[in-house]
């Protein structure tokens, strides 16, 4: 029997539990020539706020052992630009579109959510309270359970769209952040964003990134993210989307075993754009081998 890979995460109907992570897949259209986007479980687009944003100066990316640092700084076209320039294409693809949102103020989050609330073709909003690369907003809202609660509550009041709260990995105990998001009305969690990190050019004695610090993604993050998903899953009843260093099917299955309901491929898209499709196939094989009918059976 062919296993059923479909999942329903917080009301988002996905063909399979494998999507792509915000900021690593542009607005989908950039990868449209390389793979059939409709085969993905979901697409999360690059983080946007109401106003256009120029992002950080360059260099913005740097390779490190086991991963990369990025300090893009949430460059984006603003809600209006996004809706005009990218939504028409995305509506043509049969795939749930999740929009990653941010703001420099609480009100910024609310306004961004407002602008996107009634836009046809958006399946959910992912609240980014964990971007390490912007001075205001981003991770400053994710640094305490209280401010996570505030942001999520405020956005909750603004929209009926399913809400996913994307948490930061650099916390002593993610369970309290997970609970804060749940209590504020988040329908799901995304775990996790990048780890704050830094590299120096030792000959020039200066940081290699123009922004000085960046976010670490890739394999290096993987065991940390798996632990965070495991912890968060023990604390909340809402579903979790696991992400961090998925390169092979086994990496994704680890998240599902740890308690994630779906997963997202990030940095690996840059290296092998077919990673998500390989991961989908790998999960199907795994389910067959273990005689599983539904994805939820993978969880330990």
């Amino acid at each position, binding site marked *: 029997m062919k296993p059923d890979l479909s999942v329903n995460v917080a009301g988002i109907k996905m063909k399979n539990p494998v999507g792509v992570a915000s*900021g690593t897949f542009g607005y989908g259209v950039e990868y449209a*020539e390389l793979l059939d986007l409709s085969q993905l479980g979901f697409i999360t687009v690059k983080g946007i706020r109401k106003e256009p944003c120029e992002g950080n100066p360059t260099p*913005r990316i740097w390779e490190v052992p086991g991963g990369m640092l990025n300090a893009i700084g949430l460059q984006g076209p603003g809600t209006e630009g996004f809706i005009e320039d990218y939504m028409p294409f995305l509506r043509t693809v049969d795939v749930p579109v999740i929009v990653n949102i941010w703001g420099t103020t609480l009100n910024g989050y609310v306004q961004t959510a407002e602008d996107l609330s009634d836009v046809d073709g958006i399946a959910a909003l992912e609240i980014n309270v964990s971007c390490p690369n912007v001075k205001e907003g981003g991770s400053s809202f994710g640094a305490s359970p209280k401010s996570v609660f505030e942001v999520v509550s405020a956005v909750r009041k603004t929209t009926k769209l399913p809400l996913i709260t994307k948490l930061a990995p650099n916390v002593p105990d993610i369970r309290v952040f997970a609970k804060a998001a749940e209590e504020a009305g988040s329908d799901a969690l995304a775990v996790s964003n990048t780890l704050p990190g830094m590299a120096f050019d030792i000959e020039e004695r200066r940081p290699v990134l123009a922004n000085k610090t960046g976010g670490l993604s890739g394999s290096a993050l993987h065991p940390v993210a798996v632990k965070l998903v495991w912890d968060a899953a023990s604390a909340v009843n809402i579903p979790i989307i696991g992400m961090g260093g998925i390169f092979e099917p086994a990496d994704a299955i680890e998240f599902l075993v740890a308690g994630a309901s779906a997963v997202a491929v990030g940095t690996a898209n840059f290296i092998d754009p077919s990673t998500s499709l390989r991961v989908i196939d790998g999960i199907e094989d795994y389910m067959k081998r273990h005689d599983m009918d539904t994805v939820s059976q993978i969880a330990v």
Partner: protein
Amino acid sequence: MRLHETPVISNLPLSGGYYMLSLGAPELSTEAKPGQFVHLRIPNIEASSLRRPFSICDAEAGVIKILYKVVGRGTEAMARIAVNETVNVMGPLGNSFPCPVDDKMPLLVAGGYGVAPLYFFAKNSTTKGALFVGGRSEQDILLVEDFTKIGWETYVSTDDGTLGDKGFVTQILDKWQGAHPATKIEIFACGPDPMLAAVDTRAQNWGVEAWLSLDRHMGCGVGACLGCVQKIRRKTNSGTEEYMARVCRDGPIFRANTIVWEE
């Protein structure tokens, strides 16, 4: 643009840490346009290593060639690629040089491995012109005979004077321009930022068109990660605006007088 699993035909050392990699890539070789690049996955390195971008130096008869310099861990690993291996290549990527305008003489300005896309351009250009190539030292001057062979004039400079004129490539360009003030020209350039900025200034001073190919650290290579951006000026209805262009997708080639050079 596609992913290609390409067999390695040869990987030959040239002078001074430069190599020429030939890959069997029939589709790429017909599709590729001069100025475009490929994003190459380096074999025998950590699976999490990013791809590396390289200009297409030649594309003919089912084969593409890449001229590369060993500068770091990625290119070091590339130098070890053996003949029976395969290399995963994404491409062709980016925009291309415009076709040279018939009544203008194309001047190519290259620094180091910047000759790579310009050679492909020269080979495909019906109008012949001149190549100006500079480098640190004799061994950084590559492909000059190949340009000569296809009928291009060549002028060489090196920082240390070991080959051609001693000095910057823009000096030999200035010399040539001084000697041919009446010749209608169009410039195509590829090299390090300071060289491109110097060419940019000249194009503006001389009132000629110039096309500059930028070299930036890249992540995705397809316009998705926003890692490779360059601030570019563009005209709008109401004047000009600056925006963050993606070198990989909106470039790598930009028109002179549009690049906002940082100090």
